[in-house]
C-alpha cells in the first residue's frame, strides 16, 4: 500500500474519487497520479489567493492560533519520545437510536478489511487552532469564476462536515423540501446538536411552519432540538402551535402555566392563573392548578386583611410576633402554618381559619396535625398542643391519641424548645420502653427514666442511673426512696 504525504491524503479523502481504492488497476493509478500532480501544482497557485478570501468568507469559523499552537506543538513533541507509526484508527460504531444490539467486541481488522482510508494528516495542534485553511484545497481547484457554482455542489454530507469544521458553507442551495430534509437528516446523523439547530434555523426561515411541524413529527431528535431552541429564544407562541400540532396538549398547558412565574403583581398573577384553569392539563394537574389559583386568591384576601390589622395595632398576636414576610405565593402548608399561628380558633367560615384551609385543600389528618403542632408549639401554647391529641371516649374519659408516633411528637416539641415538663408528658406516651428511655435520656427527663426502670423492676439500671445524677438532688432522693422500697419485687 502506498502512503501519500499529508497533503496528498487530503486530496484523496475529500475529492469525488472517494470510492477509489489503491488496489485498482495500475493503468488508472498512473493516470490518477498524473492528474493529482497537476492538481497539486494548481493548488499552490490558488491557495495563497484564496486564503485571503477565506478570512472574509469564513465569518463564522475559528481563527488560526499561530504562535500558540506552534508552541504547543513544540511542547508536545519535546516531552515525548517518538515510537513507530501505527494505524491507530478506530472502527465506526452504529449510533442510531435503534434497539439494543449486541455490538461488543468489534475489532478494526474485521471491519475495515481492505478499506484503504487513511486519516488525513493534520497534527493535533493544527486541528486545535487552525481548522479552516489547509483542508479544502481540493475544492479550490476550479478557477475563481466558477467558485460559486462549485459551492452549490456540496452534498448534504459535505455541507454538514464543513459546518462542523467551521468552514465556508452555504445552505441556500437546499431549496426543495427533499433537499432540506436530507440536510436535516444528515445533521442528525452527525450527532452534533449545534449543526442540527443551525439547519433547523434555516428550515424555520425557509419553510412554512405547517410543513416544518409535519416533517418534525417523524424526526424525534430534530424535534427535541427545535423545541429546546424555541424555548431558549423565547418563541412561546410558536411553541404553543407546535405542541398543538403534535397533539402534546399537556406539555402545552404546562408551558403556558409556567408563564405565571414572570408575573410579579399578585392580582395579575391570580387572573392569569384563573385563565390557566381552562388549559388541557392532565386530570391530576388540573386539580393542582385549581388549588394554586384558589390559594393565591385567598392569600390576597388574607394578606390585605392582616396587613391592615397589623398596622392598626388591634391584635396582640401581630404586636407580639410581627410578620416577617407576606404570605403571598407561599405553599399551602406554609399558609396553613401561618393560619394556625395568627388565626387559630377562628370559625371555619373565614378564609383565614385553619379549618377552612384544611377543608378547601383536602389536607390529611397527619399533615394538619404536624403543621398545627409546629405552630402552636412555637407560640408555646401547650394547652392547644394538648388539645390536639386529646380525645374523649363515650364514657367521658380522655385519652391522648396521635396519627403519628409520639416519639416524633416529642422530637417536634423539643425542636420548639418545649420545657421538660411538657416533654415528659409526651415521652411517657411513647409505647416502646427502650425508645422511651433513650428519648428521656436525650432530653434529661429523670422522672420518666426512674419511673420506667421502676416499672420494669430493673434495680441494676436504677443503681447505675443513680450514679449519673447529682448527689442529693431530688432525682437522687427519688431513686434512693424507690430502692429502699421493700414492696417492689426486683427482677435483679
Amino acid at each position, binding site marked *: 500500500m502506498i502512503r501519500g504525504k499529508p497533503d496528498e491524503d487530503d486530496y484523496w479523502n475529500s475529492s469525488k474519487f472517494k470510492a477509489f481504492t489503491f488496489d485498482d488497476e495500475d493503468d488508472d493509478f498512473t493516470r490518477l497520479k498524473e492528474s493529482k500532480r497537476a492538481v497539486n501544482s494548481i493548488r499552490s497557485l490558488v491557495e495563497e489567493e484564496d486564503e485571503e478570501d477565506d478570512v472574509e468568507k469564513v465569518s463564522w469559523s475559528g481563527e488560526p492560533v499561530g504562535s500558540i499552537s506552534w508552541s504547543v506543538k513544540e511542547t508536545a513533541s519535546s516531552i515525548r519520545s*517518538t515510537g513507530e507509526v501505527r494505524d*491507530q484508527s478506530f472502527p465506526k460504531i452504529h449510533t442510531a437510536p435503534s434497539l439494543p444490539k449486541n455490538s461488543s467486541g468489534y475489532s478494526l481488522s474485521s471491519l475495515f478489511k481492505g478499506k484503504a482510508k487513511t486519516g488525513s494528516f493534520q497534527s493535533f495542534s493544527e486541528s486545535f487552532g487552525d481548522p479552516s485553511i489547509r483542508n479544502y484545497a481540493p475544492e479550490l481547484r476550479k478557477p475563481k469564476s466558477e467558485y460559486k457554482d462549485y459551492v452549490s455542489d456540496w452534498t448534504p454530507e459535505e455541507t454538514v462536515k464543513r459546518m462542523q469544521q467551521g468552514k465556508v458553507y452555504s445552505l441556500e442551495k437546499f431549496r426543495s423540501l427533499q433537499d432540506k430534509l436530507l440536510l436535516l437528516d444528515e445533521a442528525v446523523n452527525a450527532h452534533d*446538536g*449545534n449543526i442540527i439547530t443551525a439547519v433547523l434555523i434555516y428550515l424555520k426561515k425557509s419553510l412554512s411552519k405547517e410543513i416544518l411541524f409535519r416533517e418534525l413529527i417523524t424526526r424525534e431528535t430534530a424535534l427535541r432540538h427545535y423545541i429546546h431552541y424555541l424555548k431558549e429564544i423565547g418563541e412561546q407562541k410558536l411553541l404553543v402551535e407546535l405542541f398543538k400540532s403534535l397533539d402534546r396538549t399537556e406539555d402545552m398547558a404546562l408551558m403556558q402555566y409556567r408563564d405565571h412565574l414572570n408575573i410579579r403583581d399578585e392580582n395579575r398573577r391570580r387572573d392569569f392563573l384563573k385563565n390557566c384553569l381552562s388549559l388541557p392539563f392532565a386530570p391530576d394537574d388540573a386539580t393542582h392548578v385549581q388549588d394554586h389559583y384558589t390559594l393565591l386568591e385567598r392569600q390576597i384576601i388574607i394578606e390585605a386583611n392582616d396587613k391592615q390589622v397589623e398596622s392598626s395595632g388591634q391584635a396582640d398576636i401581630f404586636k407580639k410576633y410581627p410578620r416577617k414576610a407576606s404570605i403571598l405565593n407561599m405553599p399551602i402548608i406554609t399558609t396553613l402554618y401561618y393560619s394556625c399561628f395568627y388565626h387559630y380558633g377562628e370559625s371555619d367560615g373565614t378564609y383565614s381559619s385553619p379549618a377552612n384551609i384544611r377543608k378547601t385543600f383536602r389536607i390529611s389528618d397527619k399533615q394538619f396535625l404536624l403543621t398545627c403542632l409546629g405552630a402552636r408549639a412555637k407560640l408555646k401554647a401547650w394547652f392547644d398542643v394538648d388539645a390536639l391529641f386529646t380525645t374523649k371516649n363515650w364514657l367521658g374519659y380522655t385519652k391522648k391519641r396521635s396519627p403519628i408516633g409520639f416519639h416524633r411528637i416529642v422530637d417536634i416539641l423539643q425542636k420548639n424548645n418545649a420545657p421538660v415538663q411538657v416533654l415528659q408528658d409526651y415521652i411517657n406516651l411513647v409505647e416502646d420502653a427502650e425508645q422511651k428511655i433513650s428519648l428521656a435520656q436525650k432530653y434529661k427527663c429523670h422522672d420518666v427514666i426512674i419511673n420506667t426502670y421502676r416499672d420494669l423492676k430493673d434495680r441494676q439500671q436504677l443503681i447505675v442511673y443513680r450514679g449519673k445524677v447529682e448527689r442529693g438532688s431530688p432525682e437522687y432522693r427519688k431513686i434512693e426512696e424507690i430502692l429502699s422500697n421493700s414492696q417492689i419485687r426486683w427482677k435483679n
Partner: protein
Amino acid sequence: MGDDVGTKVRKVCSARDLVHLNGLKRIFRIMESNMVGAGCCQLDSQHSIRTSGNNPREVNGWAGVLLCSTSGPMAHSVRGDAPELPDFSLLKRLARDQLIYLLEQLPGRKDLFIEADLMSPLDRIANVTTLKQHDVDKLYKVEYKPIVSTSDQLCFLIRPRIQTVKWICDVVNADKAFGRFRRYKIIFSPQKFYACGNLLEEQGIFGDVTTDEWSFYLLPLDDDIISLELPEFFRDNFLEGDQRWVRTAGSALHLLHSVYGPFSKVYGIGRCSKMAYESWREQVEEGEQRARQAEIGNVFLIDRDVDLVTPLCSQVVYEGLVDDIFRIKCGCVEFGPEVTSSEKSIKVMLNSQDKVFNEIRNEHFSQVFGFLSQKARNLQTAYDKRSGMDIKQMKTFVSEELKGLKQEHRLLSLHIGASESMMKKKTKQDFQELLKTEHSLLEGFEIRECISYIEEHINRQVSMLESMRLLCLLSLTENGLLPKDYRSLKAQFLQSYGADHLLTFSNLKQLGLLVEQQPGETLTVMESRVGKLVNDKTAGKLTDAFSSLAKKSNFRALSRRLNLVPKSDEEYDLRVPRDMAYIFSGAYIPLSCKLIEQVLERDGWTGLEEVTRMLNGHEFAVTAGSNGSDARVKTDSQRIILVMFLGGCTFSEISALRFLGREKGLKFIVVTTAITNSARLLESMLDNHA
C-alpha cells in the same frame, strides 16, 4: 424500623465521635497556645495553602505530588507497581496560551466581561496579572444589566448561551442608540454555536462584533480529575434531548488523545457515549495521528443516565460529604466561620497537595476522626521535641521542621473544624435515620416504612431537595411508584413546597427520575418484558416506545445480577474496606463503578449481555486497528484508564475508582462534564423560577 435482621449495623457517626472530636479540639487549643508561647519560633507567618492555579513552579512541581499521591491511607494492599499519572498541567498551559493569544487579537486596552461560571475555571489557569499584562483594564462579571464601562473596547468571555448573547446584543444596540462607538469581541468557550451567531445577525450586530472560540475544554482539578466544567450538559442532553455538547465531549476526548494517546481500547455504554465516541473518531480521522508512546491506554465512556441511583445517594466519604455540605466549586471550598472558628471565611483548595486532605478524602467519614486525632498526637510529639533542645538544635528545628509542622497544624485544624461542623449538621437532621431509609431503598427492604418516612419528610417541609431526592431514589429502585403512591406523594409535595413544582415533576418524569408504574405492571412482569420494544399505548411511534423503555431503571434486577448490595447479615468493617461498597457504608456498590470493574475484568461486555439489556444497550468495546497488537507489550499506559462521565460524576464515585485502582494496580483518570451530587443534579431539574 427497628434492628431487624435485614438492617445492618452501619454506623456513620455517633455521639462518642463527637466527644472524641471535642477532646481533639481541646488538645489543639493547648497546642496553639504553646506555639504562641514559643515566640522565637515564629519565623514564617506565611503558611497559607498554595493554590495550584497560578504558581509558576507548578509545572515542575507535579512530579513530587504524584509520588505521594500513590499511597493512600487505606492502601493496605497497595500494589507497588501502580503506574504514574500523566502530567495534566500541560492542559492548563495550553488553555492559558490560547486565551492570551485571543486577547491579543483585540489590541489595546479593553474591559473584560466574564460569565459568572467561567470565573472559577479561569482562576485556575490564569490570574489577574496575566490578564492585565495583556491590556485588560477592568474586569466585570456578566450580570445581565446595563454596563457602566467607559472603555472603547469590550471583550466578552462567555459560554455559548442564548441568554448571554441576547444581553450583549442589548449592550451593543444601546451603545448604537447612544451614538457611542466601541469595538466588541465575544470569546465563546469552549466553542460557539450557530444559534448564537444567528442571534447576532437577527439583532443587527453581526459584523459589529467579532467572535472567537477559546477551546478551553478541559480543566484539571487534580492529579486524576479533569472537568469540562459544563454542568448544563446533564440537563441539555438528558432532559432536553439537545446534543449540542456531544461534539464538545468528542473534542475534549480528541485533545486528550492527541496529547496523551494514542488510546488502544475504548469501552462505553450509553447513547451519548456512543455519539461522543463517533464524534471523537471522526475528528481523529480528520487529523493526523502522531506516533509516540501512549500515556493513557484505555478509555471508558459512560452516560450519567446509565446510573442515576448513585449520584442520588447521600455521600459519606469525606470529600463527597464536604461537597454535599459545603459545595466544592472548581476544586475549592469556602469554609465559613463555623468551621474556621473565627469571624471570616476561608477559601481552601482541596486537592492532593493538601497532605492532610489527601489522606482523608477517600475515607469513610467514621474513620476520619481516628485519623485526625492520630495526626494531632503526632504533631504534638513533633512540637514537644523542642523541650530540652539547646540553641543550636532549636535553630535547626525552626529552620527545617517548624514551617512544615505549622502548615500541617493549620490544615489539621481546618479539617477538624470541617468535620465538627458536618457532624453537627448531620446529627441535627437525623442523618442516621435518613441513611437507614436510603439503605432500605437500595436493598428493597421495608418499602412501606420508607414511603411513610418520605411522606413525613415532605409533611414537615424539611429540605425540598432532600424530599425530592428520596422520592427519586424510591422511583428508581422500585421501577416507578404505584399510581396511588405517586398521586398522593406528588399532591403532598406540591402542598408543602409550592404548586410551581408541577413543572419539576414533569421534568423528572420526562427524564425517568420519578415515574408512575404502568398500571398492572408488576416488577416481575416488567423484567420479563425488558427487551421487547412495544410496551406502551403509544406503540405506533417508535421513538416514543424507545424513550419510554429508556425510563425503566431495572435497578432491583441489576443489583441482584451484579451483587451491588452486599449480604446484609455480615458486618462491614469500614476500617478495612473489602470492596467499593465502603463508600456507602458497605450498603451499596455504585453501579457505574461496578460496570467499569466488570468490563475491565472481562475486557469487554461478554457475559454481561443481560446487564446491558437491562441498561437499554448502547454498549461498545472497540480496539484500535493495529498491525500486530497482540505482539505489543503491556506497557504502563495499559494500566491507566481514562473514565469519562457524560453528565457528571460524584466524588464518591471517584473515591470508589481510586479504591478499585489500588486493588487492581490500575490508575483511573476521571474526566467529567462536571462534578455533580444529588443537589446539583436535582437543581438542574427545577423549573420553578422565572
